[in-house]
């Protein structure tokens, strides 16, 4: 009777969920796979220097919205500095200034940029001024010789530039070249030389600096290339990769022979650039897509909620997936964990820390907390004040870890603050009690069980497909609910239990 009731309920939920899911997927054509991730990048420039009490002015070239890149968001982070942004000769420059600064100074520029896929040709520009080469005497003769050599082997302006690059990059000893370039020329010097040679043929060209926005993560440094004016358009030529045309992977920072950062009043300048592709799927893009296809359905769906709320739900809706997994691991496999839902909360915090660093941080935090908890045991404190003390210590430990890892330059250490501290406190308390009552092996066993469960839950919950599925089709939660309820009447053995009772079979 009981079971029949349950089966009917579960079947109803299951088919209701499945039906709605199929209706949306097949009839309304909601996408089953996550859409293309929009190309959003985080660019961070960190400027470090030491100041000695004099007025400081730091100038930094920053990107501007162009046909290829649009700046979604920009931040200038500094302590006590005045900030002004100006446009000089088509370059955008931010100026940080302060009357009096002393000691180590750090300035941040942070931008979120989106790569546009336009496919349009570069914009036309007329009336381009030719900058004279200013070569004289022997230099002029050497430059003319190189130009003639290149011209003979080329057909048009672009191939001429390529030939010039070939000549300049060729390892063969060329007297004309060494006269113009000097010893160990920099990339910028080479490009400048090409521009000057080109101006002898009355071809306008200019030096451009920027960042290569690629799939790579992490540290980056500015690269230089040149732009040649061809058919009233600026065409880019990258001297290293030999890429020509519209260099759509290159984010322009500034044009001309200037340096990226100009600092007055400070010393020991150090510039670090970090580029990271942003993982966030553009929910805005997804919802506008749905909105245009199915106006009525859209009005009652998740994508009609404010963006912030949507973001919360995109995380929240993966929790049932994790919880379902937890039921499987605990009731079917028989893994022991501290607290029922603790692994899920830990898994959620792994979203911010990432798995490996999350595991390391968590283990360090729990071990340190446990050591202190064992010391507190000697003081014979009452339960609630003791728990409160452990909580305070956990927060202090988190702070300490953040500061330490930040000083060591490990950014992931900062995210330790996202761990659920109350859960950690309770874990430490339970673990120390299990440790004393049931022995260290049992405590460590359960600790490993909890972490393993959290890791698996994190890996499943953070799958792009899973997140997409539950946010676009929240009705799959009905299916999940029905399965979870069915598992609630699973009376078979747990996998680890079979191992426990194995001795009884061998009889």
């Amino acid at each position: 009777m009981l079971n029949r009731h349950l089966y009917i309920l579960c079947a109803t939920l299951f088919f209701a969920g499945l039906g709605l899911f199929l209706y949306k997927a097949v009839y309304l054509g909601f996408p089953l796979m996550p859409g293309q991730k929009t190309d959003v990048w985080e660019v961070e420039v960190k400027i470090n220097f030491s100041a000695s009490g004099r007025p400081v002015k730091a100038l930094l070239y920053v990107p501007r919205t162009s046909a290829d890149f649009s700046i979604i968001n920009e931040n200038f982070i500094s302590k006590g500095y005045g900030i002004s942004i100006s446009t000089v000769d088509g370059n955008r420059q931010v100026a940080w200034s302060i009357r009096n600064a002393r000691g180590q100074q750090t300035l941040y520029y942070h931008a979120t940029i989106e790569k546009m896929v336009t496919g349009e040709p570069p914009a036309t520009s007329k009336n381009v001024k030719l900058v004279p080469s200013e070569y004289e005497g022997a230099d002029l003769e050497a430059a003319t010789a190189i130009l003639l050599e290149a011209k003979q082997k080329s057909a048009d302006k672009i191939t001429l530039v390529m030939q010039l690059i070939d000549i300049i990059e060729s390892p063969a000893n060329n007297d004309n070249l060494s006269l113009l370039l000097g010893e160990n020329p920099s990339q910028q010097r080479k490009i400048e030389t090409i521009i000057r040679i080109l101006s002898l043929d009355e071809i306008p060209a200019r030096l451009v600096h920027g960042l290569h926005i690629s799939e790579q993560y992490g540290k980056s440094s500015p690269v230089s290339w040149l732009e040649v004016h061809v058919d009233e358009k600026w065409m880019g030529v990258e001297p290293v990769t030999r890429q020509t045309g519209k260099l759509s992977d290159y984010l322009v920072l500034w044009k001309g022979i200037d340096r990226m950062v100009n600092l007055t009043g400070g010393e020991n300048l150090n510039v670090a650039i970090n580029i990271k592709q942003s993982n966030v799927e553009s929910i805005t893009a997804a919802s506008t897509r749905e909105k245009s296809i199915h106006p009525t359905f859209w009005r009652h769906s998740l994508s009609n909620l404010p963006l912030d709320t949507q973001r919360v739900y995109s995380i929240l809706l993966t929790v049932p997936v994790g919880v379902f997994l937890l039921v499987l691991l605990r009731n079917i496999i028989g893994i022991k964990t501290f607290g029922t839902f603790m692994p899920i909360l830990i898994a959620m915090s792994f979203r911010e820390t990432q798995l490996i660093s999350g595991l390391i941080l968590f283990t360090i935090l729990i071990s340190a907390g446990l050591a202190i908890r064992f010391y507190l045991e000697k003081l014979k404190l009452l339960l609630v004040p003791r728990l409160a003390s452990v909580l305070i210590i956990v927060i202090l430990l988190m702070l300490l870890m953040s500061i330490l890892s930040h000083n060591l330059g490990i950014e992931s250490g900062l995210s330790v603050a996202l761990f659920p501290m109350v859960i950690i406190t309770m874990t430490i308390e339970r673990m120390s009690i299990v440790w004393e009552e049931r022995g260290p092996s049992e405590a460590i066993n359960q600790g490993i069980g909890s972490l393993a469960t959290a890791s698996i839950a994190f890996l499943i919950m953070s799958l792009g497909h899973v997140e997409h599925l539950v946010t676009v089709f929240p009705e799959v939660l009905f299916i999940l609910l029905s399965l979870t309820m069915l598992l609630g009447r699973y009376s078979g053995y747990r996998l680890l239990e079979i191992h426990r009772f194995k001795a009884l079979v061998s009889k």
Partner: protein
Amino acid sequence: MFGLAKKLSGIGIMGINKRNCDYTLVYNPRKYYPLVDDKLRTKQLAIDAGIAVPELYGVIEIEHQIRELPEFLKKYSDFVLKPAQGTGGDGIEIIVGKVKSLYRKSNGHLVTEEQLQHHVSNILNGLFSLGGHVDKAIIEYRVKFDPVFDAISYQGVPDIRIIVFMGFPVMAMLRLPTQMSSGKANLHKGAIGVGIDIATGRTLNAVLKNDVITEHPDTRNPVTGLEIPKWEELLMIAAKCYELTSLGYLGVDIVLDRVKGPLVLEMNARPGLNIQIANHMGFLHRLEFIQANAIRLGSVFDRVAFSRKMLSRVH
């Protein structure tokens, strides 16, 4: 793996999901749990029904009373201190004597008044209770166990766990404390579990953790083939607990005191599954046999007689 599971179910081994799903959730109504989860209520229930229990010396309910503890304990040279709602034997302190102002625990260690008071405070704050809510501390008579167990127990008190299903004793086990279990009678702590023949009260197989043994590891005396005294009486007491608690699936823990005879220590609405390992036998066939054949039998005497007569044949 599936082959193993099939074999286990073939010999009637009950898993934890089976126990929860088809027995405790079905036969044990939630509202009766407090009767057995709170040892004070269990005690009162047993006394009202004329079942002997260890004498209650006192109860500590609020932090303030802890200060009067040493004064209160002056009257007693030995006693047991335990949480009213403890689980798995956690938080139980057995004091066997006093040395000046110090208390001697059953394992020979001495504790100070302050340590004892801190322990009581931990109990009151719910450290050992299910779900961590506020608890009471019980001070009661320390059982002096029957001399029959002298040779096979190390510190602590051996007890007899009898599983009672719908009032029928189904399976029984003798739990012997060892050095490893530090005098506690809980199998997960390293106590020995010895299966008992329901019909005769004679001990059968013994297990320590998951290993089959024949002698006590500390005293080196055989633990099998031992006759438990007053077996009929023990079974009657256990069977009677069904009417007391209305719990269909129940574990009853009884000790044999050398003077006062069988005393009910506590009852458990979610008894563990290790008793199957100790008896080298699964529950399920017996439970199903009772469900099929004897559910109508009324009196305690009839039920015990049925169990003794029939169950030994069911494997």
